[in-house]
């Protein structure tokens, strides 16, 4: 059985905003019954705000919960704000989704985008791309986008987010090529959100590669104790531990380096052993 968060279960058992908004001015239908999940989203936008939103879903518990969550997230919000919602935001709202179920949140994001475009009267430029996964009808554009927005690195991750490659598996090589292509791009179009695990890993790597050698040169050392949100807790060792200038070193050198190479909002704090 899947490990769902209490919030997913709660939204599944008591879904909010089921049905169709009668005088909707934004309608979207995404997915298909053959693929195992489908979502119809109807929204009513008034004075630049989403006044009402309702959904109908054919799908598993996490598909229903994702759609329910999406309607809760957008109701009453200005359309400009609503447009920025990503699939990760939907998953975060639910306290996370099992990785194999991330495609449920992507389905929500796709429906939202299409409904807003419908409201604006723009026919969402059909992701003209080439079908890569024939089993689930997923195009190269959709795969590229999922890879870019969620910082995906493996075929398995792409399958979890888009379903592409989850059937006959013949397209796995093509998916690998797309991943390589996106990751080779010089500047990522949108900076991917940094997961905690990735953050900790990058901090450790930066300490090891960029910081420790300089400190060791002066007979000092630094140890990573913990990372809580953007707070990087460290302990100093060797000469650093008794050096009066160590606070300056932490701020001007260690913190600056970590902000430059890992994440701009990191704050380094020293903890006493």
């Amino acid at each position, binding site marked *: 059985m*899947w490990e769902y968060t209490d919030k997913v*279960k709660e939204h*599944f*058992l008591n*879904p909010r905003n*089921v049905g169709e908004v009668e005088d909707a001015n934004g309608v979207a*239908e995404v997915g298909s*019954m*053959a693929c*195992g*999940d*489908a*979502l*119809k989203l109807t929204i009513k936008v008034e004075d630049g705000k989403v006044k009402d939103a309702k959904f*109908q*879903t*054919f*799908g*598993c*518990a*996490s*598909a*229903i919960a994702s759609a329910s969550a999406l309607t809760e997230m957008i109701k009453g919000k200005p359309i400009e704000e609503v447009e920025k919602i990503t699939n990760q935001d939907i998953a975060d709202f639910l306290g996370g989704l099992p990785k*194999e*179920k991330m495609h449920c949140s992507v389905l929500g994001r796709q429906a939202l985008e299409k409904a807003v475009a419908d409201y604006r009267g723009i026919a969402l430029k059909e992701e003209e791309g080439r079908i890569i996964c024939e*089993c*689930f009808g997923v195009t190269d554009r959709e795969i590229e986008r999922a890879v870019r927005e969620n910082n995906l690195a493996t075929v398995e991750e792409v*399958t979890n987010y888009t*379903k592409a490659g*989850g*059937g006959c598996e013949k397209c796995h090589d093509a998916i690998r090529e797309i991943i390589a292509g996106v990751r080779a791009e010089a500047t990522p179009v949108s900076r991917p959100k940094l997961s905690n695990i990735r953050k900790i890993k990058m901090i450790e790597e930066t300490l090891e590669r960029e910081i420790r050698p300089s400190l060791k040169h002066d007979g000092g050392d630094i140890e990573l104790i913990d990372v809580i949100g953007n707070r990087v807790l460290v302990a100093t060792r060797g000469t650093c531990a008794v050096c009066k200038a160590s606070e300056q070193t932490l701020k001007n050198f260690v913190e600056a380096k970590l902000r430059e190479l890992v994440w701009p909002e990191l704050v380094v704090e020293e903890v006493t052993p």
Partner: protein
Amino acid sequence: MKTIYLDNNATTRTAPEVLEAITPYFHVYYGNPSSAHTFGGKVARKIQEARERVAALLEAEPEEIIFTSCGTESDNTAVLSALETRSDRRHIVTSRVEHPAVRSLCTHLTGKGYRVTEIPVDGQGHLDMERYQQSLTPDTALVTLMWANNETGVLFPVEKAARMAHERGILFHTDAVQVVGKIPIRMGESAVDMLSLSGHKLHAPKGVGVLYVRKGNTFSPLMIGGHQERGRRGGTENTPGIIGLGKACELAALRMDEENTRVKTLRDKLENGLISSVPNSRVNGDRTDRLPNTSNISFEFVEGEAILLMMDEFGICASSGSACTSGSLQPSHVLRAMGVPFTMAHGSIRFSLSIYNTEEEIDFVLDKVPAVIERLRGMSPYWKAGARACAAS
């Protein structure tokens, strides 16, 4: 909350009589049956007794019974032994609807230079016997076909298929994991060479299985080690498991009638009740040529995992052939092989009963499940449109 367990093709409750019989073999008679002392020798005698009980249920000889750790090990041993002893042949015949224990192994062997032919089934789950006959070649080492399908309960004509294989000098193995204890098996007059069974499917504990190998057949072990099982399966015996399986086989022989009368009646009541009270529902697989305890029903326009989780709120346990429950993204390979439309396959639920189910439980399920389906259909964008289309056609 009371648990209503209708998932007996996944695993069964260990029978209280079995539990009672095996408990002393953990902490009182814990000796190793291979030991020279009387303390271990006592356990060896109990294992021999279990072997006789298993053989009795299968109408086989005790020396034809090899204890293993599970159904998968039995299947793997059978297939690999056949290929080893018929090393001049490189072809395997199987079906499209096998359990992963056989199916994944065959896929694995395809990458090792073997040819595998998967015989299709029709919409009722019946094996295409014409294709089967054509598939048997002088290069075929082994046929491996399940006796009953775990998802639909549909039975394959294993005896007939085994005789056809024998006429061509081909070994025949059957995965009988779902069948043992439910329908009579008479190995004495059978053409089957090897048969797998699993303890936990017939009220013995998990972790014990059997491979039947017909006397006189050459055999090549999978587990190589000590002289246990007369050198055919190395490794210290799971003594409580084996003794439990012996007891379970003894009970199964006594209860087989009940499986085919009372349990079958409950299954039919559940099935008929659900398909008559839930519109756009249907039974998957042949309804007559089938195990007495299994019912696979599709509820159109809703998704299986959602049904399971809502039933779970009432303590009702079952399985689904939907994509979301399988961990893959496609619905059950069995239903796809049968040509069940995706709209139906995604909403399929397997109910599998045992002698421990009661009529009250079935009434409870009949009271709750139609409302679950209705509730989910109320959320489904396809329900109204789909139901209209069906009414019009």
